[in-house]
């Protein structure tokens, strides 16, 4: 669809969060907040003033334990949730003011975004390309391209409900990029996948980056983030504790392994030592 440069920010939306390249960001998040009401816990600040920006052709990793606020942040970016405060822009479109334009500019993939079981793989791709406003006359050509690229030709006419989980994963990634969006959001994409399929996912993300897409990637798996991400944001209790390349984070903390870097920031924030954290089981960051 478009890998174009985001529009120049207006005075009102002038970029406050710098990108590494200095170019206009494809994603900009400024003081983003989300508060929920919970029967037992009262008001819960799931996201509490997060700010960051992403460049074109960058894989940005959001690293955090379960319940840290990663998914809520990504849901606000994909306009599924409305921010309680602050704002965010995707390709220059503000998430609350222009939700449809935002959704046109991104592809969202997560374990909770399933496929329609009664459509065939081919119908699925066609549907998502059309509904995300890919030029109608070019939809058949785009579907062919995706079928070829993801090797789903053999089962393109089979209903999704009949496919294996590996096949479904391929169709699911293909539907995410069916409208060729410049920004892709992958929320814990390897959860529930076996080793081979998880590796395939990593390969896909790399390839998308090479094509110049911005990939916002969330995970609690250190090794994945280490391998894939150009920059990493460590998120904990809804707040961004650290942001930088792996090298920068290593330099700042004096730790080599990402796991140690992560624990360093979290323990500093909590004011507890590592042993205590392990005992409460609050962190489930796996290797």
């Amino acid at each position, binding site marked *: 669809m478009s890998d174009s440069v985001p529009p120049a920010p207006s005075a009102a939306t002038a970029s406050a969060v710098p990108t590494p390249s200095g170019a206009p960001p494809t994603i900009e998040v400024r003081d983003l907040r989300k508060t929920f009401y919970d029967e037992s816990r009262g*008001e819960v600040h799931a996201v509490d003033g997060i700010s960051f920006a992403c460049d074109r052709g960058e894989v940005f990793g959001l690293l955090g334990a379960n319940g840290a606020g990663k998914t809520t942040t990504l849901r606000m970016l994909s*306009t599924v949730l409305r921010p*309680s405060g602050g704002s965010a822009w995707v390709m220059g479109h503000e998430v609350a003011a222009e939700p449809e334009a935002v959704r046109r500019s991104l592809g969202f993939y997560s374990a909770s975004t399933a496929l*329609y079981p009664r459509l065939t793989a081919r119908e699925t791709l066609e549907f998502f390309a059309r*509904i995300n406003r890919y030029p109608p006359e070019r939809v058949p050509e785009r579907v062919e391209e995706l079928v070829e690229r993801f090797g789903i030709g053999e089962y393109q006419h089979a209903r999704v409900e009949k496919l294996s989980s590996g096949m479904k994963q391929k169709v699911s990634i293909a539907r995410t990029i069916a409208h060729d969006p410049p920004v892709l959001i992958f929320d814990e994409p390897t959860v529930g996948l076996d080793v081979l399929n998880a590796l395939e996912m990593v390969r896909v993300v790399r390839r998308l980056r090479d094509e110049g897409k911005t990939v916002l990637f969330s995970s609690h798996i250190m090794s994945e983030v280490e391998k894939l991400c150009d920059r990493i944001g460590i998120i904990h209790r809804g707040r961004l504790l650290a942001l930088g390349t792996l090298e920068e984070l290593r330099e700042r903390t004096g730790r080599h392994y990402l796991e140690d870097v992560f624990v360093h920031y979290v323990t500093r924030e909590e004011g507890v030592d590592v042993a205590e954290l392990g005992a409460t089981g609050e962190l489930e960051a796996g290797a």
Partner: protein
Amino acid sequence: MLNRADVWTLYRRELRSAFRERTIVVNSILMPIFLYPVLLWVMFTAQTYIQGLNEGFTSRIALVDPVPADHASVLDSLRGREGVRLRGDPEEETPTGPPDILIESEALALLRSGAVDAVVGFRPPEGAGSTLPGNFRVQVRFDGTESRSERARDRVESVLAGYRDTWVQREAERLGMGVEDRVRFLVDVESVSTSREMGTMILGQMLSFFLIIMVALGCFVPSVDTTAGERERSTWETLMTVAASRASVVTAKYLYVATLGIAAGVLNVTAVFLSVGAVLRPLLQGSGEEITFSIPLAAVPVMLAGAVALALFFSAAMMLLASFARSFKDGQALVQPVYWLVFLPLLLGQQTDRTLTPAIASVPVANVSMMIRDAINGVFLWPLIAWTLVVTLATVALALTGARFALRFEDFLLGSFDGSFWRFVRDRISRRRRTDHTTEAGR
């Protein structure tokens, strides 16, 4: 903003998925076509069969008095009636001797135990009749809780009535009285309804009932499938991330549910109309009635308008309720009451002795039922038909307003609200909680 191209793409996707789901195809397409025609056939065939079985029963009659000497032929009349056997008569051969005369208490005990079906006593006449020579009174006792016993009573009564007529006629002739002297006036009964009118009356009753039930049934499964079903299959969030507006998504789903409701109603009415003649005509011919089944052409648009208005109402109400469920099963439980509630006004609209009135035209569902019945009977009260449609569309608007209100809330839209419909209404309308879960989300 509503985008027609998006609505069309989403609507086609919904329909395509629906036609591949067995539950939807069975409930919204196959059942409307086959269920009621088959049920009608089964019902009438069973009725005919039971009738035949009853006809085949032999009524066992016990006498507690001997037949009066002057009327010995009563005995022959009873014995001559097919399906009647007097106690004591041999089963295989023609009886010649007198039947058993039982003691009254013994005969009544046999009647209560079901060993005989009726007890007949020949008694002396009472009142003015006692002066007539040779007169007598017959007492027939039967068990009102047993259909077999009631049938025995009917048979004995018909035999005795026939005997009485013959006896009276014979006595009158002996006294030189003609029929005119004996019977001062005759009652001649004749129905002015034509066979066509009888047919439309039957059709009006049946089609107005089936159409409404089928529109509701047609909306039922799709409304649950497209809301709670999507959540259960985790496709709801996928849909929330597509570029189409929320308004387009909801409109496409609404139109899809209404389409299947209308389709179910129209298919069912067509199937019943085409099959009713084939099912009922042979049965009615057996009873000597000739009935023609037809519908005035002008009734077709009225029926269609009724089906569309009701489908829009049922779709909105059912989708709104099903949206509170997180699984298909929960959705069914939430929507089921709407389906059963339809029957109450429907029964009101099934009254046979009146046409559409301003009062009934103001009662949703009942008004459409009556409007359709009138139209099939060729009665078109246009101002009341218009009022019926206005009332039904007002209920649609009310249901849509409720849906629009609910869709403003993010937790409802995303399915994270964990409570019932009533709790939602109570919490949000009373505005007891003004936290972020009430964020407007309808975008």
